[in-house]
């Protein structure tokens, strides 16, 4: 585990992203704060509509002009929120790169893979054509594409899903980014290929000292890949801490319920724990805790009074009014696996 003090590269403070009109805004991300250190992999986990992807996009400034971002996004001390497009472009794609869930729709189907890597090298480096080609081969090799040299002239459709995601990562790495934003990069892939891509991201982060924010809905992916994890619900953070701590000993009723609904050490074919109801719509969030409507331990104040993130242990924060009740409700987990 890497828990020792490392330089914080990204410091997000009170991020708020909203869409719609000023009078009736839809708040997709509400008062989200977290930090990412160099070489660290932070998992951002939540269900569809929890705001995890919008958080990533807000960092990169790609939700404007329709979305409005407030709060601070400090990238090595510099706030990205007030930057104009031109200045943002010097950071976006160069220092901070992003990969998406659907590599086929992010790659240009009409350009060869070599050309698409070169494009990024032209934009962000001063390499000449020959050096760019050499670098492109090096990058494809780095992300584990066999016979890299012979594949430069291939088009995206000639690659499999897993190989396309590797190409996307190669393009993202072209500018030597210090932070990689990965938006469900393995959701469309098979478990075996997902495993290969996650191991690749892990080794790149370790070898290049690159920070990664990995958005996923799968707690298993987090457990196997991330150093720390932030659990999101209804656009808010409900729990953040080291992966080991959150998985083994979750505190927020939502994280507890989410982990409990995954079958592990339960008798086969017995009812699984399920969180009642469905995630709330953004226009129907209560003023208090977003999870209160589905929460088994919600009290009278939960729907009205917003719980703040509070320290629970040295490295963890939880936003819940009823931590004791939550632990009592879900009971201690048998440690045996």
């Amino acid at each position, binding site marked *: 585990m890497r828990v020792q003090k490392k330089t914080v590269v990204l410091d997000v403070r009170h991020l708020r992203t909203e869409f719609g009109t000023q009078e009736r805004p839809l708040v997709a991300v509400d008062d989200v704060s977290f930090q990412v250190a160099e070489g660290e992999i932070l998992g951002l986990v939540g*269900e*569809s509509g929890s705001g995890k992807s919008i958080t990533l996009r807000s960092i990169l400034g790609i939700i404007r002009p329709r979305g409005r971002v407030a709060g601070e996004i400090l990238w090595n001390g510099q706030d990205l929120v007030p930057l104009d497009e031109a200045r943002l472009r010097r950071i976006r794609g160069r220092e901070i790169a992003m990969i998406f869930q659907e590599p086929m729709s992010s790659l240009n189907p009409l350009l060869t893979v070599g050309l698409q890597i070169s494009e990024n090298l032209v934009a962000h480096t001063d390499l000449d054509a020959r050096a760019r080609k050499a670098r492109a081969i090096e990058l494809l090799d780095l992300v584990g594409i066999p016979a890299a040299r012979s594949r430069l002239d291939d088009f995206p459709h000639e690659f*499999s899903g*897993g*190989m396309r995601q590797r190409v996307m990562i190669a393009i993202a790495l072209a500018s030597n980014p210090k932070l990689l934003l990965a938006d469900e990069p393995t959701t469309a892939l*098979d*478990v*075996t*290929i*997902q*495993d*290969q891509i*996650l*191991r690749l991201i*892990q*080794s790149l982060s370790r070898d290049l000292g690159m920070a990664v924010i990995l958005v996923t*809905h*799968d*707690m*298993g*992916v987090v*457990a*196997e890949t991330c150093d720390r994890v932030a659990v999101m619900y209804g656009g808010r953070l409900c729990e953040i801490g080291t*992966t*080991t701590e959150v*998985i*083994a000993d979750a505190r927020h009723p939502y994280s507890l*319920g*989410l*982990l409990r*609904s*995954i*079958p*592990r050490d*339960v008798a*086969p*074919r017995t*009812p*699984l*724990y*399920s*969180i009642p109801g*469905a*995630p709330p719509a953004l226009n129907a969030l209560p003023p208090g805790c977003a999870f209160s409507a589905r929460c088994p331990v919600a009290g009278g104040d939960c729907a009205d009074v917003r719980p703040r993130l509070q320290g629970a242990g040295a490295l963890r924060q939880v936003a819940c009014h009823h931590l004791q009740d939550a632990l009592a409700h879900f009971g201690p987990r048998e440690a045996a*696996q």
Partner: protein
Amino acid sequence: MTMPMPMQAGPIPLLSLCALSMRFEKRRSLSDTLARRPQQVVSAVNDVDLDVMPGETLGIVGESGCGKSTLARLIAGLHRPTAGDILFEGKSVVGLKGARRRAYNRRVQMMFQDPYTSLNPRMTVRDTLREAITVHRMRDGAAIDRRVDELLDLVRLPEGAADKYPHEFSGGQRQRIGIARALSLEPTCLVADELVSALDVSIQAQVVNLLIELQDELGLTVLFVAHDLRLVRHVSHRVAVIYLGAIVEIGPSEALFSKPMHPYSKGLLAAAPSLDPSARRRAPALVGELPSPLAIPPGCPFHVRCPHATERCRREKPALRPVGAGMTACHFAETIGDA
């Protein structure tokens, strides 16, 4: 184990697949024809023998493109196999036509992955269910509406749901409508192709619980095709692992998951993300990708990715044979399985 396990010899299987194969011919382009290139053939399902016992849940797992959905669709009668036979209660169903075809279709119902595209957006839930019930003449007159309410109750949808359109429901609720539609025909066997894959984790558990409950209540046989191994382990009595259109291992769920014998099953299970951060690996569990079903490797189809492959594996295709609690198609299952 206290679970009712289907016996090997006792009752006759509900469903038997005998040397079942499905090949899709790729369309030849004009230039292929002019150049006299041979026709390309996708071998999606190869020579599969499989018995499904009444009342059991058989899990079918494998990577995308391994043929698990084709297998499900063959069973549901959506494809006609190119070779082999499907027996339902001992009788062949491959060449059925007319009323007999409809009778089989009624008894084997398929449920699909995508709750957004498998329901007609212009039909209310009531219309969707009524259509199924009237086509198969399950009920008459006023009994139809009573049955609709009964079905919605069965899948735990609220009373007012019948007169709403699919877009008014969440993904999990739509999947319940799909289940209600399948159950409206009082089937014997349900084929669930990635039933919960499109749903959020917290909703998956609700639908899986419902499926298990309904199965026990109605005595259904279920084929559960999925790629989420944790869920398959949870719902299945037996599990078949498919690789390039063939079964490489089949056995009781707990035995297979706790001690897989085939190197592919081992790799597949190890690749599935576990919830134990201490079980982290630096190297991927399985290298390489599924070869194209247009050109299945000779010998053991898995030998190109197998860490244990020998000369024999490149030459000789291993047959599915009893190993441990189940059946495995590997020349070296005993030595590898115990490793």
